[in-house]
C-alpha cells in the first residue's frame, strides 16, 4: 500500500458521515486537487498517461459526444485540427434530443477519452504539463465524495465518567518552551492533553493526525511558533507553520465533511507565552467537552 492509499484508508476508518461537498483546497496545500478534462480537443495521444507516475489516468474506448456537442471552438481552433473538424461537423448535424457518450469500436486507433481517478491522483500536475492539446487542467478542489464514498454511521456508545483525551503536537522550538514556561509558572491547565514533541509544527503529517483519531482520541491540537517566526523559514510563506496552518485548514474542512468537525485545531505561541499556551489548551479542552466523546469510539466498539 502506498502512502496515498494508506491515508485514504485512514480517512475511511475515521469517517462517521458520508461527505457531500466538494472541498476547496487552500492555496499552499499541494498533493490534492482535481484534474478537469475537456474531451473535444483531446487527441487521445496518451502523453498524460505516460507522464502520470501513480497510474491515475486511463484511456477509455469512448467518445464523450455531449461535450463535443457543447464545445465552444476558440477562434484559432483546436490544436488538433481533425478533432476540430469532427466537433464542428457534429455540431452542424445535431438535431433535437439527448446525446450520450458512445463507445469506440475495438481496433480503431486514434479515438478515446481519458478517465481520471480521484483516489490515485497526487495532483503533481505532470499530466497537465505533458498535454499538448490543453485539455487537462489542475483545479484546487478535492472530490472527497468520490474518494470516500458511502459511510455507514457507527452506533452511538454510552460512555460513563467521560473525560476528553487530547493529543497535542508541540513544536520543539517555541511552543514546547511555552509549555515548559507554563509549568515553571505553575499555571494550571486541564490534564486531558498529552504532548507529542515534533521538530516543527510543519512536520506533523496528516497520517499521524488520522492515526490519533483512529485510536479514539477526542481531539488533536497542533501548536507551533508564532506565524512568521518559524525557526524553519521565518517569514517565508513556505515556512513550516504557514504551511501547516493551510494544511490544518484543509484537514479541518475534511473532518467537517466526515462528521469530526471541530476536533482538529492549530494555534501558535512563542517561548515567552506560557500563559497563552495554558489558555489555548484550556479553550480547546472546553470545546471538546462541549462536542462530547469522539464518534470514532463507536466504530472501535463495533470492531472490538
Amino acid at each position: 500500500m502506498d502512502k496515498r492509499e494508506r491515508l485514504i484508508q485512514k480517512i475511511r476508518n475515521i469517517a462517521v458521515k458520508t461527505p457531500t461537498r466538494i472541498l476547496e483546497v487552500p492555496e499552499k496545500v499541494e498533493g490534492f486537487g482535481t484534474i478537469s478534462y475537456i474531451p473535444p480537443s483531446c487527441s487521445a495521444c496518451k502523453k498524460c498517461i505516460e507522464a502520470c507516475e501513480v497510474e491515475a489516468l486511463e484511456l477509455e474506448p469512448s467518445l464523450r459526444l455531449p461535450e463535443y456537442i457543447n464545445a465552444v471552438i476558440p477562434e484559432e481552433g483546436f490544436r488538433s485540427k481533425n478533432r476540430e473538424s469532427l466537433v464542428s461537423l457534429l455540431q452542424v448535424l445535431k438535431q433535437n434530443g439527448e446525446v450520450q457518450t458512445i463507445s469506440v469500436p475495438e481496433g480503431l486507433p486514434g479515438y478515446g477519452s481519458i478517465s481520471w481517478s480521484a483516489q490515485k491522483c497526487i495532483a503533481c500536475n505532470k499530466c497537465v504539463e505533458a498535454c499538448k492539446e490543453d485539455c487537462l487542467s489542475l483545479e484546487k478542489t478535492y472530490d472527497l465524495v468520490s474518494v470516500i464514498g458511502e459511510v455507514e454511521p457507527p452506533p452511538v456508545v454510552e460512555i460513563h465518567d467521560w473525560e476528553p483525551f487530547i493529543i497535542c503536537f508541540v513544536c520543539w522550538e517555541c511552543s514546547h518552551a511555552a509549555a515548559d514556561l507554563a509549568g515553571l509558572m505553575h499555571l494550571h491547565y486541564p490534564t486531558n492533553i498529552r504532548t507529542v514533541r515534533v521538530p516543527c509544527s510543519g512536520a506533523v503529517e496528516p497520517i499521524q493526525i488520522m492515526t490519533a483519531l483512529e485510536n479514539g482520541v477526542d481531539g488533536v491540537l497542533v501548536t507551533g511558533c508564532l506565524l512568521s517566526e518559524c525557526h524553519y523559514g521565518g517569514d517565508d510563506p513556505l515556512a513550516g507553520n504557514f504551511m501547516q496552518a493551510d494544511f490544518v485548514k484543509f484537514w479541518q474542512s475534511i473532518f467537517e465533511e466526515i462528521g469530526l468537525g471541530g476536533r482538529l485545531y492549530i494555534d501558535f505561541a512563542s517561548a515567552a507565552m506560557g500563559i497563552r499556551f495554558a489558555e489555548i489548551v484550556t479553550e480547546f479542552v472546553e470545546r471538546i467537552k462541549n462536542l462530547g466523546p469522539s464518534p470514532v469510539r463507536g466504530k472501535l466498539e463495533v470492531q472490538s
Partner: protein
Amino acid sequence: MKKLFLCTCNNTLNKTVDFSKVEKEVAKAFDTIETVDSLCLEDGLTKIKKSVSNGDQVAIGACSSQIIGIPVKEKLKTDLISFVPLREHVVWVHSEDSKSATSKAIVLLTDAALQLDYMEPPIEFNENMIERVLIIGGGIAGLKAASDLQKLRVGVTLLEPPGQNDEKYYEDHFFMSDKETLAQMLKTLHKSLSGVERAQGYVQEIEGQMGSYEITWKDSEDNLTTQDYGAIIIATGTQQYIPNIAKKCRYGKSERVLTLQSLVTRSGKKNAKKGSNILVVTDPDVEMSSAEGSHLLRMTEELASQGNIIFVSHSDIQTDDENLYRRARNSGVIFLRGNVKQVKEHDGGLTCLIENRLESIVREVTVDTLAINELVGPISDTTRLAAALGVECDDNGFIKTRYSKMKPVQTSRRGIFIAGGAKTVMDLSHALVSAQNAVLEAFKVVRSPLKHSGWTPLIDDESCDVCKACITACPNDALRLFEDKVIHIPVHCEFCGICVSACPTRAIEFQSHSKESWFTRLETIAKTHSHLERNKPFTLVYACSECANASIDQAGFTGKSYASGTYVIQFPCAGMVSPIEILKGLVVGAERVIVAHCPPGGCHHQTGDHLSELVVQLTREMLREVGQDPDRVRATYMMAATPEKMQKEVELRG
C-alpha cells in the same frame, strides 16, 4: 493553364451527354476545352502529350482511368492528370436520362478541375537495395530458390538448421513426391549450388527495412553472425507428426500398430512378410492437404501391389491427381468411409470398429496390422522464427501470406517472402513453383532500385502529438518511431492513406489529398449539383481505388444503371476515409454516403476493409446520438465480379 480533353468515344458519348452544354458549363473551370473523337488513338494521345509538355494541367473526360490511363501514362510518364470516367460512370449507366447524365458530367468535370488545383508532383524515392538474399531453410524450395537466384547473379546465403541431413529429409518429406524423384531433384539442386554461401544456424533478430535488413543468426555453438540482406526468403518447410487418433488405436502399446511410413519402409525390404491384412487409419479431425492425400494413395497402392490386403478408413482424401485414386483402387485397396471407433487386440490380430455416421453403419474389420497415417505440419521452429522476423502466422501455424490470391509469396512484412512448405503443405511441383515465385519477388526487390513515385503521407512534426495511432494503423510497418518522432519509410509504404485517417491531429496529410481538398471538393460537388438539379437528392460513394472502383467501372461495362445523382469519389484505399469526410459529405447536403471497400479480408493493403467498417460503425453511432438517421451512412464491399452491387447499394438508398 488548365486544359480539358473531352472524348466522344467515336461519337457515342455525345448521344447521351449534351457536350455543348457541358462545354458551356465547365468553361469557367478550365481555360481551354477540346473535344476529340477518339482520345485513346495516336492523334488524341499526341494532343495530350503536346499539352502536357507545354506545362498545362490536364483533365481528361473519357473512359475509365483503367483504360485510357494506361496509354496516357505510358506515353507521358506523368501522374498529374485528372481522369473523369464519363463513359463508365455517366453515359453507360445513365443512358435513359440524358439531362441528368449531362448534369452529372458537369459535376464530375468541375470536380476534376478542382482536383488539378490540389495536385502536387509525386515525390520520387531512390533507395539503394542490398543485392543479397537470405534463404532460411535448405529443403527443396530453399535449394531451388538459391539455385535460381544464383542463376540471376544475385548474392545468396543459404541458412540451414544445424544437423540437417538428406536421409532425414527424405523421411520427413516422403509425401512431396516418390523417393527417386525427390532424391534426384535434391542431388541436382545441391550440385548447382557451387557459388552459394552456406551457413548453419537459427535466426535471432532482424532490424532495418526492405532493401537493407540486418539479420543476426546463432549457430550451434552460440556464435552470433550478423549480415545485411535486401530480401529474405523463408523456406523452412514441414515436418511429420503422429495424429491424436493414434492413441485410440493403441499406437506405442501394440506391436501390430505402426505408422504407415515405417510399414512401407519395412515391406520394401526383401525378407518382408507378404499377404497380410492392413487397415490404414486417417485422423478425421484434421483436414488433409492434397499433397498428403496423394502421398497416402501412393503408399497404399505400393502396399497393395506387394500382395497385402489394404483397407483405408477415411472421411475425406483430397488429391490433385485422380489417377492416383484410380490406380490404388485397381490394385485392390478397399476404401471404407468412417472413423475408427474402437480397437481390440487378440491372438488373431486386431478387431476394429469403423463407424460411418452419415449412414449410421458400424463395420467390424479384423486385420493383422494397423497403419497410422502421419500428418504434416509446420516445423516446430516456425513460431519462434516468425516472431524473430516479425511476420505473422496463420491458424495452422504456417507463415501467413499477405493475400493468398494476389500476393501468394508475400508475408505480412515487406521484403520477406515464403517459398514451399513454410506456407502450407505442398507437393514437389507446387513447392518448386512457389520457390520460383518467391525468387522473382525477391529479385524485383533487390535489383530494381525503388523508384516509386507516389503521393506520400507528409508528417508535420510541429502538430504531431506522437500518439502512435498512425504507427498502429499502418499495415506495412512504413511508419516508425525514431528519436521521439514519427518517420516515414518509403520502401515499405503502399500509399494507402490509412495513417491519415487514424491521425487525430492532422499531422499527417496525404499529398494531393489534403483534408482541405476533400472539403472543397465536396462543397463544390454539392454546389454544382444543386445549381443544376435543384433539390434532387444525391449520394456520395467513397470508393477505394482497387476493388470498389473496378466494380463501379464494371457496372458501366455491363450496363447496370443506377440513379444519376450518384457521385463516385476515389480514395486510394477505403481505410483512408475518416468520420470527418463522411460527416462533411452529409453536411454539404448528400442524402447518403456509401463507403465501398474491397471484399472482407481482400484489402490490397491488408486492413483497409476492416478499418473502414469500424470507421463507419463509429460514424453511425455518432449520427444516431446527434439525432440523424444512421442509415444515411453505410459501408459495403464491392468487387469487379459483382457489378450489380453498385446498382443494389444505390437503389437501397433511393
